[in-house]
């Protein structure tokens, strides 16, 4: 669909291992929660790692898409649709990102 869309400027190198890039589950958690907090449609008081986007935070499907796009922009890779449908809580997102970036998830 987006042939003319964006030339993502990839100015960061891909490191061989996630740990040398300074990635850990805590760092990923921090970044994800920051991105979610910056999203205006979510009130920061109700937000926890386990809060469900649609049921507890009151987002609809388009808001969910916008949120996942913000996370894609933050971490620099695209999340395909089949995976995106299942990411309904911040903890799901963190687990998915840890798997994708080969960081140990506890």
């Amino acid at each position, binding site marked *: *669909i*987006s*042939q*003319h*869309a*964006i030339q993502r400027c990839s100015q960061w190198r891909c490191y061989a291992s996630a740990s040398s890039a300074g990635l850990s589950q805590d760092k990923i958690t921090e970044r994800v929660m920051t991105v979610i907090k910056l999203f205006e449609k979510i009130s920061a008081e109700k937000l926890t790692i386990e809060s469900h986007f649609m049921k507890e935070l009151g987002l609809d*499907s*388009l808001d969910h*898409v*916008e949120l996942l*796009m913000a996370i894609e922009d933050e971490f620099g890779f695209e999340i395909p*649709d089949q995976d995106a449908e299942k990411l309904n809580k911040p903890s799901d997102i963190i687990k998915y990102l840890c798997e994708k970036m080969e960081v140990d998830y506890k």
Partner: protein
Amino acid sequence: STGGTLIRQAVKEAKPVFSATSEDARRRVLNLYRAWFRQLPYIIREYDVPLTLPMCRRKLRENFEKYRQVNDIRVIDLLVAKGQMELVETAHMWKQKTHVMDYFKQTVSPKPTDFLGKFFDGKEP
């Protein structure tokens, strides 16, 4: 009717336009939203249009919400196709600034309430 003729019952099922299931259609809609969303900053820059990114995002959301209650898969497919055509025309710069501003055109002009307004409008006070 003559004996022996079978009444053929036409199978009443509509041929799909693009998607076979509603899941498929939902995915198309969300992908269209994603593509438009990603294109918005470039539209603002390339068309030099007096809009801000929040305004454009709100308008995009408004245009998608307009068809929120549509459930017929073929209708959804057609709407997605039209949206995709609009996106292609806008992204390739085949449109002009006025066409982009048309999305923000006010279709209902506010009715005058004071005497002079109604007078200029030509209506009886």
